């Protein structure tokens, strides 16, 4: 079994009973399978959420980085002005700004092509006052002084507007942060639900092993010893469930990443990719998905120990 193999990978002193002796609590009789399945599902869902949070955070940071390095000068056609001359002037002013790496002037055809998604193809836009765009790209790490560019544009090309995308970037950040926050809330809820499931399972296990607990007390076992035995038992189940669930989530993202790479040429896939990136988790993303498995295993062990203590303190 995969779970058993995974548990074997965990350092033996973490799980080992006193020696090669059988565990004091019978491994099979304590509703183990159902709880492992619950933990697998919870870890899988938590892993998907953590991966999604990583994707959103990475995509948002990619957008922010690329957009923050770019400003657009938009020159609107105005009666009595030579728009080509205005475009050249705007490009010249742009070139003078410190840190500019590339100045790209969109010609009229390129400008009209940008409208195709909204207006469709085959339209003659010759009669429409299509604005012209000049895009300035700055080198990485530069902090462009845009106030003076804005002032110069206002003076020399009054029909030009400078868009540094700040408003859009601000909204994007709010949306991305909201998604990350929702993801974190879902993770917290999954952890709480797992904790509650473990608490119920522990109480069930204690009821099912009441005769064993009685004997342990009578031969001089302290509550801490009994709690430790339950913790060991549930840590084993938690690790098994957590690692299976975590690996399932990792496999899910690997398959999605491979599939999205294979279908990247599809127009629909391009749009999705534009929004969410390549659906491929970075290394840290995979690590965090697996870490969630370990956190859930730890929560399982801690909750079971606390439940045993609380239940035993109500006895005698």
């Amino acid at each position, binding site marked *: 079994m995969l779970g058993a193999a995974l548990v074997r990978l965990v350092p033996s002193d973490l799980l080992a009973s*006193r*020696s*090669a*002796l*059988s565990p*004091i609590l*019978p491994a099979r*009789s304590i509703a183990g399978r159902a709880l492992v399945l619950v933990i697998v599902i919870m870890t899988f869902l938590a892993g998907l959420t953590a991966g999604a949070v990583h994707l959103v955070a990475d995509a948002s940071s990619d957008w922010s980085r690329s957009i923050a390095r770019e400003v657009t000068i938009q020159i609107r056609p105005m009666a009595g002005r030579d728009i080509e001359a205005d475009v050249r002037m705007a490009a010249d002013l742009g070139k003078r700004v410190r840190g500019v790496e590339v100045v790209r002037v969109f010609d009229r055809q390129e400008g009209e092509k940008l409208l195709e998604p909204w207006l469709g193809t085959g339209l003659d836009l010759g009669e429409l006052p299509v604005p012209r765009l000049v895009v300035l790209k700055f080198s990485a790490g530069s902090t462009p002084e845009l106030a003076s560019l804005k002032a110069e544009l206002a003076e020399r090309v009054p029909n030009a507007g400078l868009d540094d995308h700040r408003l859009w970037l601000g909204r994007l950040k709010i949306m991305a942060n909201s998604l990350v926050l929702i993801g974190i809330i879902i993770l917290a809820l999954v952890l709480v639900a797992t904790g509650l499931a473990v608490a119920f399972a522990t109480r069930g296990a204690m009821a099912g092993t009441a*005769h*064993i607990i*009685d*004997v*342990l*007390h*009578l*031969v*001089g*076992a*302290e*509550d*801490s*010893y009994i709690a430790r035995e339950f913790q060991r038992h549930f840590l084993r189940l938690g690790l098994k469930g957590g690692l299976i669930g975590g690996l399932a989530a990792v496999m899910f993202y690997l398959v999605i990443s491979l599939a999205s790479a294979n279908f990247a040429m599809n127009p629909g896939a391009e749009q999705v990719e534009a929004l969410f990136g390549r659906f491929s988790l970075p290394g840290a993303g995979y690590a965090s998905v697996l870490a969630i498995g370990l956190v859930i295993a730890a929560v399982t062990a801690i909750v079971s120990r606390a439940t045993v203590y609380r239940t035993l303190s109500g006895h*005698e």
Partner: protein
Amino acid sequence: MVEISGNPSVDVEIGESPSELVRFDNVGLRYGIGPEILRDLDFSIHSHSFQFLTGPSGAGKTTLLKLILQTLKPTRGRVTLFGQSIAGISKAEMARLRRRVGIVFQDFRLLDHLTTYENVALPLVVQGREESSYRAEVIELLRWVGLGDRMHMPPVILSGGEKQRAAIARALIVQPALLLADEPTGNVDPSLARRLLRLFIELNHTGTAVVLATHDLQLMDLVDARRMVLAEGHLHIYD
């Protein structure tokens, strides 16, 4: 100490400087608002001593053993265990005191998922002892009770007598100062009952005080030992 040989005659020896292991002063027990089921219990159990606890079924023999073990709390009176009053004692301290007491039940209470060897070693395991430190001890004790060839078997396949001997070995492995045995011969035939009694007496010779709860008069007649008789909630002691 008591003696038993091939015939039922018994010699009584006085142990060296006996000390009080258990002391009950004016102890009573009632459940809820019902009448007292045990009342005015005043007695001591000394080290190296051997006594029968007897009385008709339902007289409260098991209840009295539970009061000694403190799995039941008295509703009045004072219980002292190994010189320490158990009033207000912590659970951890109580667990440490219980390690000096061996207990044998009529229904054995062996753990079926463990082997006989592991059952006998259990009191040492809960003390955190390493297996290498007690392995030889457990094997020797299992041989002493005649279970040397059954040690790796689970209790479910042992006979009633073998289970009882395993339960006795579990109680003895910590070399307890006091052994409480609740109807240990109740589930075995008369000849095995006599063998088990001989085992308890051998144990008493090694210095362990024994309280043997039984209603088997024939068994008690084999040994001239102190009798603690429970009847109608009162304890009568015949030294």
